[in-house]
């Protein structure tokens, strides 16, 4: 039994050192005139007001040649084709599942874009349509890839690869999508003994590293065997580390997660989320990341 009670600590003032990091960046708020030069093209997050290019969201100005966009720092997920996402089924419909992926609109997973048990080339029958709930039902989590983007911005997903599919036992962590670094692969078997799927939509899935997988199941079989305690400890620690990194706005990718995990090893898992421990871990992690880069 432990109840940790404390007085609040005031949020630290933005120090001059961290401000200097932002020096090179052009930050705007809605209504700010970015440029009155007419030679530029209007991109996302901007609008034209009497020949002046004006920001419509708060964020960072990005220029690509003549195109000016404003990238909001806090946003819902704007999917692009090929993004790896983690999502939760919200509805089973005719020939499709609705999936919550932290986007503006619910995403769609068509029955024709999943691998069903029995191999890739199996034809979809009316029976499959009736038994859709046996594969995925409301509340289930999946990993998938964005197949296409509809005109209204809704995403169409597919799971036509053995690495995608229904997720079994594990823990979901929600962070802001802008914190997930885009990489070649978003699936990692971390050397500390667990696996991670860094969904580009900010949904991160932590799970015990799987053994040999059965291909016949097509990714729709989940084991309900208890996960050993040692794996659990690693997963819980990773979960708290992810929250620490997210709270301090550090980009998430395999190396940063791993460094943070290693820096946290001197503390008990449940203490990681205490503010002072958080600060310490983040400092160590930042240092190691700088060393590695520099």
């Amino acid at each position, binding site marked *: 039994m432990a109840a940790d009670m404390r007085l*609040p600590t005031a949020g630290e003032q933005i120090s001059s050192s961290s401000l200097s990091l932002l020096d090179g960046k052009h930050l705007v708020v809605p209504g700010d005139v970015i440029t009155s030069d007419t030679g530029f093209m209007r991109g996302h997050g901007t609008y034209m007001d009497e020949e002046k290019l004006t920001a419509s969201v708060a964020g960072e100005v990005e220029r690509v040649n003549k195109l000016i966009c404003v990238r909001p720092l806090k946003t819902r997920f704007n999917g692009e084709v090929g993004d790896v996402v983690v999502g939760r089924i919200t509805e089973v419909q005719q020939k499709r599942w609705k999936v919550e992926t932290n986007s503006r609109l619910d995403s769609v997973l068509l029955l024709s874009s999943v691998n069903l048990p029995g191999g890739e080339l199996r034809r979809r029958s009316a029976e499959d349509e009736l038994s859709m709930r046996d594969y995925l039902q409301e509340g289930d989590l999946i990993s998938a890839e964005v197949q296409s983007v509809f005109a209204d911005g809704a995403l169409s997903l597919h799971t036509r690869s053995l690495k995608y599919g229904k997720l079994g036992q594990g823990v979901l962590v929600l962070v802001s999508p802008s914190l997930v670094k885009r990489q070649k692969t978003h699936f990692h078997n971390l050397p500390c003994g667990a696996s991670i799927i860094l969904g580009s939509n900010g949904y991160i899935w932590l799970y015990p590293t799987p053994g040999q997988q059965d291909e016949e199941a097509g990714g729709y079989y989940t084991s309900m065997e208890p996960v050993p305690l040692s794996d659990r400890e690693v997963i819980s620690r990773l979960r708290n580390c992810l929250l620490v990194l997210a709270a301090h706005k550090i980009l998430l990718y395999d190396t940063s997660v791993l460094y943070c995990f290693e820096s946290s090893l001197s503390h008990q898992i449940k203490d990681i989320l205490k503010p002072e421990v958080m600060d310490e871990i983040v400092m160590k992690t930042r240092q190691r990341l700088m060393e590695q880069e520099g």
Partner: protein
Amino acid sequence: MASVQVSEAEKVYIMHGVRDDLRVDGRGCEDYRHMVIETDVVSNTDGSAKVSLGHSDILVGVKAEIGKPRALVPDEGYLEFFVDCSANATPEFEGRGGEELGIDLSNTLYKVFNNKHSIDLRSLCICPGEHCWVLYVDVLLLQCDGNLFDAISIAIKAALFNTRIPKVHISEDAEGGKEIELSDDPYDCVRLNVENVPCIVTLCKVGQRHVVDATLQEKACSVASLLLAVTHKGMVTCVRKMGGGSLDPESISEMTETGKRVGKALHAPLMDLLKKEEGLGKNRQKVGFLR
């Protein structure tokens, strides 16, 4: 109540974790998330407190007003509870969505304080049968992240500790008419004895074991929970079974035992903290809602 969706496999993972005494966030079965408490956050109240437990944020304001004592107990004041579930906390509370939960919460609070020892109601009496203090305890949910009952009870205790009721003097004129005079010195005030104010402990039955301070995910895995209000002496002032499941008699006695132990242990650190905060005096840097 604000709820989350959890898949079957996630539930299995959570339940096995509870069995192994290692919860998803690394806590043991009887650990609370860390709590941040601040009192005196709203200046227009006679006492206020803000408590955050995990991401559950509760704001409590206490206002003292002069009213007429209840006919059955002419020599006592009384407390009124109101819980507001604003749509700020979750869109589900929009419109009348939060009403049901709000009434449920305030009814439970009435039961928790339905005894003679929690607050000395006689100290709230000004003039028997005619005037007494009525303490309006208004609870505002700012964020919901599970375990509202416990957080609310702690916030109420802190707010009552912080409450200062102005002193009144009753003067009697020649014809026997009475007049109430409010002291105009702001430091001339009465404080409440909050020693016996209970704290609520909610135990959620997950699998074969029970956990305290359940997150929304853990709550989704449990079919029944037991709410206990426990004083610092270990007296139980309110028990309620919640949720759609049933409990067997053995687990009820186990849960009451745990609840009493955990609840009793909550009071000492809370009182220490409140005294420490008070010791910092007027110069204490107030944090309020900015963090």
